[in-house]
């Protein structure tokens, strides 16, 4: 009897001691598919690879930050551009992990494919310890991306109408060159000047390079920048049309969308009127 009491007491004490450990373990974790990241392991990696730019405290104020014209992300503010979640919500662990895999086009953030999958999962877990938001808020509900609509000339033309109607050109320019009437006035949420994406410059976007990524960019918006969310404004079936048209603005990138657009007289006229400099990829483009 006495022995049982002692063992019960021992168990009780053990549970009491373990409880805070369990809680802290939950807060310092990330889950990406089957991977579980650990903040403790991520901390070691962060203070080896990341803090030079992102700073000792994760505030984006590392010693290299002064040399960068696109400032490193401030993890304390917990505002992230590349998400699969609605504007104003936290990204998923998968979103942060994808950013580490991909890096950011046109910025100093490289792709971290040199690290292992486990390393990146651990880093995601540690990055989430910088802001208390990760304790109070949950990641937003992922905006569903339906299967891609078939690519047709009709779809591209409808996308072109949407580009006009939604006034994307106000910032991105009538030809998608990032030179719209409001472009020169844009600042991000830290009052730093920021440029709208120039579609003619390449094939990759800030948050990925696939049609799926492009769909997500304008539906979620890029939080912390002037790029708003269109999730309440564009119907999912219309969104793919806009994706198809936006691809034709990437005139230096060989895409099925551009190829199809150039089979039409209208498309040829529009693309050749853009006076492309650089390497032509479509049959109708002259240097």
């Amino acid at each position, binding site marked *: 009897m006495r022995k049982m009491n002692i063992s019960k007491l021992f168990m009780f004490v053990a549970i009491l001691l373990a409880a805070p450990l369990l809680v802290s373990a939950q807060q310092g974790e990330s889950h990406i598919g089957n991977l579980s990241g650990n903040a403790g392991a991520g901390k070691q990696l962060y203070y080896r690879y990341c803090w030079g730019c992102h700073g000792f405290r994760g505030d984006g104020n590392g010693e290299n930050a002064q040399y960068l014209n696109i400032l490193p992300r401030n993890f304390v*503010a917990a*505002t992230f551009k590349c998400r699969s979640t*609605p*504007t*104003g*919500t936290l990204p998923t662990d998968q979103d942060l992990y994808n950013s580490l895999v991909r890096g950011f086009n046109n910025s100093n953030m490289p792709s971290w494919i040199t690290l292992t999958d486990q390393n990146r999962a651990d880093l995601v877990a540690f990055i989430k310890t910088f802001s208390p938001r990760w304790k109070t*808020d949950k990641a937003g509900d992922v905006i569903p991306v339906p299967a891609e609509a078939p690519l047709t000339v009709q779809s591209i033309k409808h996308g072109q109408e949407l580009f006009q*109607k*939604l*006034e994307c050109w*106000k*910032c991105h320019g009538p030809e998608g060159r990032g030179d719209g*009437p*409001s472009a020169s*006035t*844009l600042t991000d*949420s830290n009052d730093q000047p920021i440029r709208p994406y120039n579609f003619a410059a390449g094939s990759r976007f800030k948050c990925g390079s696939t049609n799926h990524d492009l769909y997500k960019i304008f539906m979620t*918006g890029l*939080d*912390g*920048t*002037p*790029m*708003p*969310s*269109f*999730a*309440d*404004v564009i119907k999912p079936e219309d969104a793919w049309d806009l994706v198809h048209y936006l691809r034709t603005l990437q005139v230096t990138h060989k895409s099925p969308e551009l190829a199809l657009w150039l089979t039409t007289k209208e498309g040829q006229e529009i693309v050749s009127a853009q006076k492309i400099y650089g390497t032509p990829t479509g049959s109708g483009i002259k240097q």
Partner: protein
Amino acid sequence: MTVKHVFLAAFATFVAVSVTTAGPGSGTISGKITYEGTPAKPKSIDMSKEPSCAKQHPTPITTETVVTGPGNSLANVVVYISAGAPDEPPPSTSANFDQKGCQYLPHVLAFQVGQELKISNDDQTSHNIHPLAKINREWNKSQPPGTPPIIDKYDKAEMIPVKCNIHPWMHGTFAVLKNSHYSVSSDDGSFKLPNLPPGKYTVTAYQESYGEMTQDVVIAGGETKTISFVFKAKPY
């Protein structure tokens, strides 16, 4: 029933009545917001890049960062009880924020934590609404013409600058407050905070360009206390 009982009943009624009148909603803090020094001159806004808005303003409108009136009065100053009053649940009415003629109406919108915020676009052009919250979550949504109002609410008290990135002259303020005792100073700089139970209050006045000032005020009963805030104007 004895005479004593009657007296007691009468006394109880008297106490009850006096508690009601001297109880919730008796005191008032009112006053005027002024400035000293030279404020920046309002600048004329060039809306030529947005013809549908420009034509709504036969005479160009001016910036509203600092709105002054006669007698050095300051409009658009949020005056609220920052301490001394309990947090209150939000009212069932919505706070309405309108975009008309590429202008925010009102320029400063005060409402309570948890209160419904309704943002409408009356223009023939797309706006993006970008409240730059730091304590609450920052979001940024496009609102093309003819789309339904955006409905939102804020969970924490904060002064949130709002802007439209497409039309850089459009900016305003959401004042998210913890209780219903607030006022936005009118064109003559006057404000009024009624229905204050007796107590010691901290009154804060917030101007988007000049920052905030506070004063402690004691409300003893059914009285009206008059206070004034004098902001130091900046010439830039």
